[in-house]
């Protein structure tokens, strides 16, 4: 038996023996374990599972043991991952620290920074948030203006960050600030880490149209940040941030994968909520057409992802195709949400919890919250710019 087969067997056995049954089901967002000082575990099982995995270093399997990981090889990590998927084990810990800052520190951080921050991330002691966007800098992130003045041993920060995801629940923040006003705007940006309890920070949750508030405005008023909390070089924060973007996408995909599968397909909704004529056709011809159209397109988009993968394996992939996924995928998702709520009719526009089923509430909520999909992470307009430049080679506007 090779070492890897042995590892596989042991891992499988350990997971079987230790992963609680309730931790083997898909998890919704509010069942996730994000860690941090202010965190309350959603269940005892979640806490148990988290503790066991932290102990083994399997919250961050590939990180070195001195950084709080298990020091697994890439092959071993793959096996662990596959075994967890096979058994349906939940991620014991999720969040910006583990998936975004961690990899960035491994690549750009100093040894001191790694030793300081990585173990606390892996053990879920510190929860991180991200300070990128500003009120004037959305799609055009590089225009950010949050100012970091050089004060010798520290920077003095003034400005505002917006869309700080769970900023009110996080302990530390990784943040892009402007350390230089001259030259190309990308080159005056620096990547900083700091404690959210540093004096001068005010965090204000921003209510959304869904009634929830996952994001905060973060106001920085003469906030002092020691210089050794710069990650990478001063003025090179844009490169660190760009590298992080890749990890953000992986994170999103991972979260997506672990979400509970929807109970009903779109055509289930149509069959459940709308009437059929004598020939078994939906009476509403417009919905019938939109539904057929959506199902065809949705499948074609999924097939395109598969095709890209297969063509990639076959060495016959047209790289330009990769530029369309964010655009066409999120537009179709938005179309789907609209279609479902249209099918639900008034039941897709309810607010209270008494008169609408949990599922109806979820669909209504998704219709609203998923409007962010075509905006965040590169709006559809930015994606179309990218396609027209990179895939079609059209000139700059």
């Amino acid at each position, binding site marked *: 038996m090779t070492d890897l087969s042995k590892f596989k067997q042991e891992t499988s056995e350990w997971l079987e023996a230790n992963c609680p049954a309730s931790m083997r089901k898909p998890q919704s967002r509010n069942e996730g374990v994000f860690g941090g000082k202010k965190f309350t575990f959603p269940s005892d099982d979640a806490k148990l599972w988290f503790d066991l995995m932290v102990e083994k270093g399997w919250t961050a399997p590939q990180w070195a043991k001195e950084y709080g990981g298990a020091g697994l090889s890439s092959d071993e990590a793959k096996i662990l991952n596959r075994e967890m998927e096979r058994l349906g084990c939940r991620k014991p810990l999720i969040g910006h620290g583990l998936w975004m800052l961690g990899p960035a520190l491994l690549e750009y951080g100093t040894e001191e920074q790694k030793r300081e921050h990585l173990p606390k991330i892996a053990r879920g002691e510190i929860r991180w948030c991200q300070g990128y966007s500003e009120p004037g800098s959305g799609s055009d992130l590089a225009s950010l203006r949050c100012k970091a003045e050089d004060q010798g041993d520290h920077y003095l920060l003034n400005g505002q960050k917006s869309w700080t995801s769970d900023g009110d629940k996080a302990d530390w923040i990784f943040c892009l600030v402007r350390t230089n006003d001259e030259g190309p705007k990308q080159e005056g940006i620096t990547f900083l880490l700091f404690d959210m309890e540093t004096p001068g920070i005010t965090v204000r949750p921003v209510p959304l*149209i869904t009634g929830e508030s996952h994001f905060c405005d973060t106001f920085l008023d003469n906030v002092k940040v020691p210089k050794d909390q710069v990650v990478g070089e001063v003025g090179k924060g844009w490169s660190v941030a760009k590298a992080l973007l890749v990890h953000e996408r992986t994170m999103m995909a991972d979260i997506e994968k672990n979400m509970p599968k929807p109970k009903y397909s779109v055509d289930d909704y149509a069959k459940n909520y709308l009437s059929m004529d004598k020939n078994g056709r939906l009476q509403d011809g417009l919905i019938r057409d939109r539904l057929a159209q959506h199902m065809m397109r949705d499948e074609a988009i999924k097939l395109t992802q598969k095709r890209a993968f297969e063509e990639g394996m076959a060495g016959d992939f047209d790289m330009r195709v990769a530029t369309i996924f964010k655009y066409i995928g999120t537009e179709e998702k938005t179309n789907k949400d609209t279609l479902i709520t249209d099918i639900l009719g008034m039941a897709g526009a309810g607010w209270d919890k008494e*008169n609408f089923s949990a599922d109806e509430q979820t669909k209504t909520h998704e219709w609203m919250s998923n409007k962010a999909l075509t905006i965040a992470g590169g709006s559809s307009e930015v994606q179309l710019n990218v396609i027209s430049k990179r895939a079609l080679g059209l000139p700059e506007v």
Partner: protein
Amino acid sequence: MPLALNEEQRMLRDTARDFLQNDAPVNLMRQLRDDANEKGYSEELWHKMIEMGWPAVAIPEQFGGLGFGFIGAGAILQEAGKTLANSPFFNTVALGAAAIIHGGNEDQQQSLLPKIAAGELTLALAHEESNHHQSHGIQCQAFIDGKQLTINGNKKFIAEGANADLLIVSLRTAPPSSNNDGITLALIDPSTEGIKINKVNMIDSRNYAHIDFSNVTVSTENIIGERHNSQTLLDKTLDHGRICLAAEMLGGAQAMLDKTVEYLKDREQFGRKIGAFQALQHRAANMFAELEIAKSAVIHALSAIDDNQDLAVVASSAKTLANDCYRLITDEAVQMHGGIGLTDEMDIGFYLKRCRVSIQSLGDSGFHKNRFATLNEF
């Protein structure tokens, strides 16, 4: 049929615009929501509207009305739609008064219309029974026994259903036959025994209710229109509502377009106003064009009411174009504002939600295009 407002109607519109912009901005709506206001509208605002004579605009002069016609009512609703100003106006006038004007006997007209005109009576139409608008598929039953009507059944998503002084209820009183369509409308006091009103909160924060009728008995004197044969009256009433709602919707669409264009002129990204990006310009220009043609369909339909023309085709056109253009414009407003459009601080979400409920109310575009096609025999 006129497509332009006459001078009096223009004055009414301009006054309504000034008043609503000042006294009923979107923040009033936000406040009502945050206070979980029971009625979903401001009593104070409604009283000011009454003082201004609005409930009387579309009531014929012989019943104490001002005789501005539904073009007048539509002008007010369009302005109200711009600030999302809510009041009993729409349901009382566009649905309630319409049913009484067209179906009420002389006694009913003499007793009710002046009260409506004076702002002393509010009405709601209890008609829907499912998640989707329908015209005639009524299950809510009433038996007529001598001088008494006994009602059993459930009505759903009744706008102003938990507020109105009186309900107009659509009932199945007989099976459809060659002589009768089997539908009867009746005026019912919501405090009658056997009525259970269940408030429903929709995303637009207005007042809706499900109402259950359990052996509710009222006098046959409460019947409006022809007994067992009021489908035509019901259709006409619904068409009044569809047309007037379309007018309100266009106001909302106009406000959203204006706000979005303002934002395009103000917001900078990549070193320029985002309104200088041609892709956004073309989409905004298209929104403008769509809104203008929808306005014509709506004023044409309002005019058809005042000229006592057949309403079916024009109502379905007006509601379809209003649905489609309000949806287009609110969706684009969100997209063009970006993330900030999804925060509750901005007004956009209020319009987005009101738009969605308005689309579902009194028929979505699939419903109306189907109806239009049927009316045109294809």
